[in-house]
């Protein structure tokens, strides 16, 4: 990499600063509003220095069982992620390895599941889950989110599996392993970065999803994103609680991404062949 001149360096840092400001401002507003006393919340210009208060956080957990909603979100997001990774990577492996002229059509068909607008299927889903008794359960959301997450996982993982040299699998088959063992011990570990990327996307999608969670859950399986919105009612908007809730919702996603990050390394198959 060539050295940057001083003026170029200044330019780069300036651009980075702008980007940072654009991305961090909402987070600053969320965090600062969540600890601002209500009377000064809409003061103009915004109060930069104030006595922080934890009232919004306390109210958040006492007015409604917000802990339970977070737990629901976690169950739904982790459940859907696990489900999607398991079935998605198996399907992707099949699509990557089976040599058949219609295999691309199968892959496209799987991708096409993501093409309909979610709002179009809310009512049918509602009827189906009501009839099957799954309405207002985390399982309903896990199923729905997986229909969106599996195609994504299949497409991502197919790319990673395509990169794993077949010679490695052939070597393992001669060494005495069957197909599933080869998949588990050889192919999947080498596609670990793909699993990490897929996991991040699946988790974030499921964690953030709003429409289905709003329509298909009540007090039992409500997720945190929907619960936060419940502080927005026709007679009052409790901004403090909304901001406190929003901040808490941000945390698991960040932790999850950081956890997956160690797998997001390149060149895992280096040195295997040639």
């Amino acid at each position: 990499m060539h050295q940057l001149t001083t003026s170029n360096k200044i330019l780069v840092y300036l651009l980075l600063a702008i980007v940072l400001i654009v991305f961090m401002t909402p987070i600053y507003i969320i965090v600062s509003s969540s600890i601002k006393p209500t009377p000064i919340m809409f003061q103009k210009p915004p109060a930069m220095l104030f006595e922080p208060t934890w009232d919004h956080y306390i109210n958040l957990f006492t007015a409604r069982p917000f802990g339970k909603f977070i737990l629901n979100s976690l169950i739904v997001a982790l459940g859907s992620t696990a489900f999607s990774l398991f079935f998605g990577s198996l399907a992707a492996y099949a699509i990557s390895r089976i040599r058949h002229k219609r295999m691309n059509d199968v892959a496209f068909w799987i991708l096409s599941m993501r093409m309909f607008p979610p709002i179009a299927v809310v009512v049918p889903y509602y009827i189906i889950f009501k009839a099957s008794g799954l309405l207002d359960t985390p399982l309903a959301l896990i199923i729905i989110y997986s229909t969106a997450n599996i195609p994504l996982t299949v497409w991502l993982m197919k790319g990673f599996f395509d990169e794993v040299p077949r010679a490695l699998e052939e070597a393992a088959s001669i060494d005495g392993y069957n197909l599933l063992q080869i998949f588990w011990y050889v192919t999947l570990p080498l596609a670990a970065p793909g699993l990490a990327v897929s996991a991040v996307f699946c988790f974030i999608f499921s964690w953030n999803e709003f429409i289905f969670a709003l329509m298909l859950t009540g007090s039992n399986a409500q997720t945190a994103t929907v619960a936060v919105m419940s502080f927005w009612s026709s007679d009052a908007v409790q901004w403090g609680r909304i901001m406190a809730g929003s901040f808490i919702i941000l945390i698991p996603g960040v932790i999850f991404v950081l956890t997956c990050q160690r797998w997001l390394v390149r060149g895992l198959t280096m040195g295997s062949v040639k």
Partner: protein
Amino acid sequence: MSSIQLKSVVKRYGPVEVVHGIDLEIEKGEFVVLLGPSGCGKTTTLRMIAGLEDVSDGEMSIGGQVVNAVAPKDRGVAMVFQNYALYPHMTVRQNMEFALRPLKLEKGEVERRITETAVLLGLDELLARRPSQLSGGQRQRVAMGRALVRTPDVFLFDEPLSNLDAKLRTQVRLEIGKLHKRLGTTIVYVTHDQIEAMTLADKIVIMRDGYIEQTGSPQEVYTRPRNRFVATFIGSPAMNIVPATVKDGELAGDHISVPIPDRFRSKLTEGQAVDFGIRPPEIEQVKSENGAIAKARVEVTEYLGNEALLDLRIGSQELIAEVPANQCPGEDDEINIRFNPEALHIFDAQTGMSVEV
């Protein structure tokens, strides 16, 4: 140790047939080299023996048992791949352990085998390294070690030296030869390098376009090639081929004619179009025209150290001769040459088959 038999083995990919009903017997403990230019079906044949490719037709047996429908893992074979195929997420030790795990050995036995193999191949210092931290030659040895620990009945090598530099290639070639002497395991080895084939093989199988052209010991295929293809494929530089016609007890070519050696006389008919072959070292320079069979102009000389190669021209015919370097003539010199008639090979011009067959 196992024997291997191929009976009319055919391989098709869809409508395309790439191996056309080959027959091959490999005896217990034999070192067999499949040799041929790229695309001749040698690797496909090896992969069929390994079980990585289905046999489309015919019968494949290992150790007397038909294995057409037997999975690779149950064939008792181990394979060294051209690109080594080491598991990159495992250390050298783990690579070997992984190969042993399906055998369900006791822990002590696993350790013993790994240590023994590592010492044999000089891998003991490298056991904790990953494949990405090894040089090409080291990777090659690990690939061999991984195959070796399993003490298989049959060893399969798919161009194992093609990714190594020339010096290392010679060294590893020697090691493979020693290994075979020591272990006595049946080996099937694929290469397009005739030096590897000549030095290692008990038996060479020369393939072209999905057919076996000749099977025999290195000496047999060199001294008694069955056809023109084998004759020119084996030996470096390649055998000179001269088109000629049988005429009055001579092979008459363009500006060059040689008396027909006695052993060929009964096999040739007057007027028959043939190609005769002579290997470069069998072409001699002679001082006087007496006893010479032709006068040749030296176009280019290539100095090799001990020998020199001469590009000769006789009329429209080009020949390559190999002479001791100290007798190397100058370029553009005219020299008198002669052949040892006993070293002559004669092929039918049309079929390309040796007239001795």
